């Protein structure tokens, strides 16, 4: 039986997604008697030499396309996979993985599940686990119809670097002529304003709706800067456009793994908490002792978060000056 990983090499951060798939394969398919290969799409010829290092399996099909558009990728998959008997397609986390998994399963008359955290192979089927009920519940599904197409949940596995690709088997396709039915008249790529990688951040300070105003959010961001901390926001703050979306922490933003996270003025909705739950120490500052975040923190202060953060910044700065 064969499984295939599908990777979008047109995106800048494909390495992180390849390492994520590498980890998932090692965890859930390492002992299975399966043959794995990868289909890696790319657009720029200059990216081609580095693609070998992005392959989490022993063989790869490198498929050159005009750029990422789901219609083009699905047409390209049809070209490369038409006669293939693949029983499992693995797609990485993110927007692209989720949309391709569902649509490809439909076209192959298979079954799909997105944002999968865990997987178990069963005779003739596949069991997969994902979150539901606004991330309050872990739901287990049985996928009944092959091919199974799943996309991973963001942050569900720790990335594992890819090594030992010396004997990689490579097949090349040039499908750069596909145009996706001319549905898109023109495309402009807008790269994300790069947030720093929060995975290993020492201190992350996150501001929420409890801060009430854009000005308070701005001040909290300044305090974070003064303390050398990374700064993030919750969903209501992002939707008010008080800070750019790339600072969003939670299921639809960044899944952070800092050593310390200070949640200031945050109620603690489960979809947000998923973004900080891997922190070693969670500190909640909130006026409401009943707020969900208070129970879910290691340490809590029940008080006005701006007043506490202002004092904390002064103490931190004073201590730094003393030590200097």
């Amino acid at each position, binding site marked *: 039986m064969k499984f295939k990983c599908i990777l979008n090499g047109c995106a800048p951060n494909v390495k992180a997604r390849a390492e994520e798939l590498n980890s998932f394969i090692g965890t859930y398919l390492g002992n299975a008697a399966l043959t794995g290969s990868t289909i890696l799409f790319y657009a720029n010829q200059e990216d081609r030499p580095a693609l070998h290092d992005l392959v989490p399996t022993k063989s790869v099909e490198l498929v050159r396309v005009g750029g990422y558009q789901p219609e083009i990728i699905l047409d390209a998959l049809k070209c490369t996979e038409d006669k293939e008997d693949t029983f499992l397609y693995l797609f990485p986390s993110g927007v692209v993985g989720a949309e391709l998994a569902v649509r490809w399963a439909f076209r192959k008359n298979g079954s799909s599940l997105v944002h999968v955290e865990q997987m178990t192979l069963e005779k003739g089927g596949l069991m997969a686990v994902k979150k539901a009920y606004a991330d309050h519940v872990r739901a287990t599904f049985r996928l009944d119809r092959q091919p199974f197409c799943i996309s991973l949940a963001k942050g569900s596995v720790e990335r594992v670097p890819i090594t030992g690709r010396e004997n990689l088997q490579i097949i090349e396709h040039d499908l750069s002529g596909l145009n996706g039915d001319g549905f898109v008249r023109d495309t402009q790529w807008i790269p994300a304003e790069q947030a720093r990688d929060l995975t290993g951040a020492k201190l992350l300070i996150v501001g929420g709706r409890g801060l009430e105003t854009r000005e308070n959010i701005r001040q909290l961001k300044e305090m974070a800067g003064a303390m050398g901390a990374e700064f993030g926001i919750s969903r209501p703050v992002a939707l008010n456009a008080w800070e750019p979306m790339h600072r969003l922490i939670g299921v639809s933003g960044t899944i952070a793994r800092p050593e310390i996270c200070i949640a200031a003025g945050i109620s603690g909705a489960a979809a947000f908490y998923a973004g900080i739950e891997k922190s070693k120490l969670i500190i909640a500052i909130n006026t409401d002792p009943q707020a969900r975040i208070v129970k879910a923190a290691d340490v809590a202060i029940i*008080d006005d978060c701006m007043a506490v953060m202002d004092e904390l910044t002064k103490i931190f700065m004073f201590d730094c000056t003393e030590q200097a």
Partner: protein
Amino acid sequence: MKILVCFKAAPNVEMLLDEDWVVDKKLLIDTSFVRNDLSAHDESALEMALQLSDASRDLGMHVELNALTVDGPGATPILKTLSALRFATAVRIEPGADFLFQPTAVASIISQYIRLHAPPDVVLFGSQSDIGENAKTPLLTAEMLGWLCITRATRIVPTDEEHMTVTHQVDDGHARETVRVPCVISVGDAPCTYLRKPTLRDRLSYGKKPIAVLAEEDFQLPEETETLMDLEILRHERDAAIIAGESPAAKAKVLYEDYLKPLLSRP
């Protein structure tokens, strides 16, 4: 241009207490006693449709807005609000069963509804409901219709009668694309898209229009290819130590000395 917005009202589960989280024999959690709200992405989709209509009017183009939900009577207040916001039609399809984890059934009903009635140029969805979190209905609807699909849109601007410019999230950034209709668009995290409130005058003038209700029996349902097997409640509890003190300064000092400083000074 004719736009259909598909949405779902979902219980606000953040209002549930810890003891309310109980899985019953049918693998459901009773949320009947909490308020139904629009799912966040669905709310954004409805407001973006209104903004698209406003912008089209400025360009001299007419946009007809229509709303559809596959949901119980709990969705009626939202449909009435949409009528008051001048949606031309507000339709509810009464589900015969709980479709929380059956996106294929929902997509099938929506696509059949679209084929049976005058097809719109654009179908807008939220990317996923807050409760089911299936994130599949817009994609499956596009596939069933054989239409093209743009996901996680954050901005839609009218171009002409047959095109619109859609900014949407992709991996590591956004793409801004001019696309032709018909198409399905799912809306993602879009800033400044809280649903506007109708005026009292519009509520009185338009909000009392009857809501069309169709029955699920009018549609053929496909076989689901994924089956829910188990639900496990997640408890996020770390037993927080509460720092007491007479003032914010006193509390901040304890926080720094006892918790932050030892960790921050570690290499």
